[in-house]
């Protein structure tokens, strides 16, 4: 293909490489520019060490979540986006229900995308901070294994933090 004549006038511009990411949960495939996908340190390491084939399988991340991740990476790979633009775009991506956000934080952690991990964690923290403990337990699938006495003792240990909290 190096000899293809139509490439001549674009000779100075390197050809855009793409990667295909495939969700192993529902087999959805996404074709992404390489520089967009490389914002994931995990993918970058695979590419750098030549472990990446034509299709990169992404375990445990659904297509729905992968689409969000790619949207984030596209926004942040755009050199002309201003800080304000990115902030707005990020806010849009994390305007989701809490369970989607937890899926997203797991995806950001697995793919090692620091910025996405941070905005998603911040959003989760903002949404749980004023909730009653029982609601937070449900969100994180936590079973309260304290006896009532133990729970009271833990509260008493840091009573200053629980002041005015039911």
């Amino acid at each position, binding site marked *: 293909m190096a000899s293809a004549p139509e490439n001549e006038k674009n000779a100075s511009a390197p050809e855009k490489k793409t990667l295909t990411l495939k969700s192993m949960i529902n087999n959805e495939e996404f074709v992404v520019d390489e520089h967009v996908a490389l914002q994931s340190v995990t993918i970058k390491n695979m590419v750098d060490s030549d472990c990446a084939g034509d299709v990169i399988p992404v375990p445990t991340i659904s297509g729905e979540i992968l689409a969000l991740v790619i949207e984030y990476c596209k926004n942040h790979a755009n050199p002309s986006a201003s800080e304000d633009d990115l902030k707005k775009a990020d806010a849009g991506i994390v305007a989701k229900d809490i*369970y989607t956000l937890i899926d997203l934080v797991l995806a950001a952690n697995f793919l090692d995308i620091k910025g996405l991990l941070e905005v998603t964690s911040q959003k989760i923290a903002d949404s749980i*901070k004023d909730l009653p403990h029982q609601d937070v337990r449900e969100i994180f699938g*936590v079973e309260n294994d304290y006896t009532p006495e133990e729970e009271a003792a833990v509260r008493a240990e840091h009573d200053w933090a629980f002041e005015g909290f039911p």
Partner: protein
Amino acid sequence: MPHHNKNIDMFSQLTNPIIIIIISFLPFKDAVKTSVLSKRWRHLWYGTTTIDLDQAFFVDPNEDSSIRSVQRNSFIEFSKRLIQYYSRPTIAKFHLAFSLSEPPQSNVTDLQELIHFAISHKVKALDLDFSNPTWDEQSHTHHCPVELYELPDWADDDDDLESLKLFSCNFRVSEFNKFGALKSLSLGWVKLPTSSFKSLLLSCVFLESLSLKKCWDLESVEIRSQRLMTLVIDKCSSLENGVVIDVPNLRVFKYCGPVVYFVTEYLNGIVEADLDFGIEVEFNEHGDVLHQLLMDVWCVRILSVCSYMLQVIPSSEEYPSMKPPLNGVKHMILKTALHAHEYHGISFFLSSCPNLETLTIDIDPARRIFPERGTHLNLYEHEFLSKYIMVYRCVERSLKVVEIKGFKGAINEVVVINYLLSYGPALERMSITVAKELGPGGQHMEESYRQQAHKILKFRRASKTLNIMIN
């Protein structure tokens, strides 16, 4: 979300390191509260990278001093326990607020230990506040009656520290040579002689944000920088030799203090300016100085001005409006008493901001009104009070949102609101927040203010789509 995988699988992936990342984004107090969720969560918060040790969590200012002293001790005990059990190699934010001017004069070595802990954990944002919350910010005296805390020296160069805030904390300027990554600096309640400030700026070449609050012995602020984007000068009342700013990339400029000599150049990138001279106790014909300052920030989008500005600007030669106008201003904030003596100033800004979209009127009757102002301007023909109507371009065309805070329904407030309602066809939203303060006899007035606000709903409006909200 019926199809959603809120299932065991998802929860099993929520490992402790991920939970700790989420906990780190909670306010510190809420992070501590997660200890009660389950046994597994009990100590996870010890990994939060946002540490906020504030004596206000422990100390009740209304208690007498012996109880406060016990509370301060438990605060120190808690802090020491935290650094003993802390489970992470790094800290993102470390805030320590402990007033030194109260007994017990806690062991300085305890504080030293806390600070060393933060530094040795490569803290990115360090915030040390040893001031006393009861100190009077408005007072003109420059001296705090206590010894200031002495910041310990850093052992090595520190390329992690990006943001540093020191309140009521002495430091050695030479230390700043060690901070290779410092972008944001905030100093307050500290003696800062002009010469120290100058050498400080020479050491901090990467600063993007600088805030000076209640710094004394500082006679002038002279800044030339390509990087600085935010500059705040708050109640530094010894600035006799003025403020010189040559900062082409400055985006936010906030000044609160007496009127001083300002020299500003090339503020072409400025987005937000807050000019507050509310601290002035005397009326002066400073109109031209203030006008010049407004000219310097002419391209702002968000402009906040004070009651003093509103009373004094009519004494400028350029009155009644800016030439060229402040075309960029979209949002204007008036810190006002809405006293009749401010009306000419308000008109000046309405007429000078032809593209204004949002007007915030922050009413506080305690703002200082100067009876001597306005000798040459009378109110009989002012548009708020008379039938000689002058409608400004912004009111006629662009003004969409009016926010009124601290509404009490006094006549001087009502005439301004009436004017905006009668002549503002583009208005979409007006929000009226009633004053919360008690009446002169200590009685609750909120309900009666609210009733006054409801009368506004019946006023004639030029806009057909206006929505008025009363809070």
